[in-house]
């Protein structure tokens, strides 16, 4: 890691904005992935080390994972599997597309993807905000546990499967079997829904939902009105134990 820090220092650039601190670079053409992540994980504790950019990711897996400090990281290009996985407190901005499992198991913080996301974006996330400005493919928000996800484009099939908590907002269309076996997550879709999964139904949009939606759309930089969306959620017939069915077990 020492060598990585030296290399990182060597390519430091001073930002025009002093309030935000200087921008420091990690070039993956020179620095190994493990050293990139170790450097980012150790950052945010000293002076001028809270703004970083990662250059030349070239589709690498596990870029900027396991961060637990409130730093800003910009990834200049597309990444592979599990980008910004397990994120806590940090803001990770990907100026490209991401492979499967972006922000999987995120705890808090913000992850913004300028391009598309592959399968299971935000899977099992406990908190924080994941914004995908392009499309997300299948299984977006699978087993989400409190994360908020805003997708500017479309999402693929089996999204929000077994989603337990949090909000999934889709400005475009949703693929088949949306919200299959869903628990208490809220799903908001502006476009069409190819089909709803088991125990997922359209629900009434009440004022408190419009408030949640308005806030999420603003924070995600999405130009859409809450009134254009429909809300979907659990019919609560699948996961609740029904005493009348006791004899069937």
């Amino acid at each position, binding site marked *: 890691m020492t060598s990585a820090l030296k290399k990182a220092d060597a390519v430091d650039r001073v930002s025009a904005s002093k309030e935000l601190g200087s921008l420091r670079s990690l070039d993956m053409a020179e620095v190994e992935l493990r050293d990139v992540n170790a450097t980012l994980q150790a950052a945010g504790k000293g002076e001028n080390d809270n703004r970083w950019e990662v250059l030349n990711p070239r589709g690498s897996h596990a870029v900027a994972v396991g961060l637990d400090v409130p730093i800003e990281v910009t990834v200049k290009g597309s990444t592979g599997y599990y980008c910004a996985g397990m994120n806590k407190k940090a803001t990770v901005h990907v100026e490209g597309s991401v*492979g499967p499992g972006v922000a999987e198991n995120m705890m808090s913080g913000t992850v913004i993807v300028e391009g598309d996301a592959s399968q299971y974006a935000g899977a099992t996330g406990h908190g924080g905000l994941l914004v995908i400005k392009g499309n997300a493919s299948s299984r977006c928000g699978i087993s989400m546990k409190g994360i908020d996800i805003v997708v500017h484009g479309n999402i*693929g*099939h089996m999204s929000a499967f077994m989603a337990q908590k949090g909000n999934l907002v889709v400005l475009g269309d949703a693929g088949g079997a949306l919200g299959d076996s869903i628990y208490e997550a809220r799903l908001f879709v502006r476009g069409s829904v190819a089909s709803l999964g088991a125990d997922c139904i359209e629900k009434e949009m009440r004022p408190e939902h419009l408030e949640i939606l308005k806030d999420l759309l603003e924070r995600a930089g999405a130009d859409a009105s809450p009134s254009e969306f429909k809300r979907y959620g659990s019919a609560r017939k699948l996961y609740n134990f029904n005493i009348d069915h006791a004899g069937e077990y």
Partner: protein
Amino acid sequence: MCGIVGLFLKKDELRPRLGELLTDMLVTMTDRGPDSAGIAIYGDSADGIKFTVQSDTPKEDFAGLEEALRAAIDAPVSLKVLDTHAVITVAQATAATAEAFLEGRGLRIMGKGESMEIFKEVGLPQEVADRFGLRAMSGSHGIGHTRMATESAVTTLGAHPFSTAEDECIVHNGSLSNHNDMRRRLTKKGFVAKTENDTEVAACYVSSRIAEGANLREALEGALEDLDGFYTFVTGTKDGFGVVRDPIACKPAVMAETDDYVAFASEYRAFADLPGIENARVWEPEPATVYFWER
């Protein structure tokens, strides 16, 4: 797991670089499949039919083969040896006799066609590419595979691509669940898979549909109906390049298109060195959707 790559050139300018670009893509996918690798490349059309044959004992088997084949078919033969493989070209009229002769000598026919050549072996993708000199090859399109075997043995014949008809080939990431039933059905139709591998059954399926009059797009649409299991397939014909994923689509896939080419890979990493990739349209192919390009 397995890694698959494909590159289909829309313009001739990149033809001399096809082998180089495809090899780099293939080697990048080593992590996904380090046990064997293979490539099918559509090069210059031969004046006749090219057979790519393989032998475990190439020194013995390829010595004197050209002369023996020439005598057997009483017609000109050209033969080019590349490690364990040899590419043998004969006139169309003598192809059937030549094929019977080659099989009679115990050689394994990996593929045949006017332009397609297939090279595959056990080993790391970089080693396999070096043995055959893949980087130096030119052509219009090609597909490649790095294998992590799951359902049949790690052997040369179990490596991909598979070819079961002239100028047709397929690579596969996934596993089929109805390949035994499909194998029996195809055998009855006369399309006999030579190995125990599930992907070869898929190759036979596509070949059978094309033989029945379907184009590659229709054959792949048929695969969505008739083949059960997990699959991302990338296929080649003399002039065409096709991609299809099963409806569940858990096997990864990404595509890139520019004015110059269409590229496929299991992961974006494989595209990082393609010319103009920063301005390419990059997307994930939809499940149960056939993508098809033709020259």
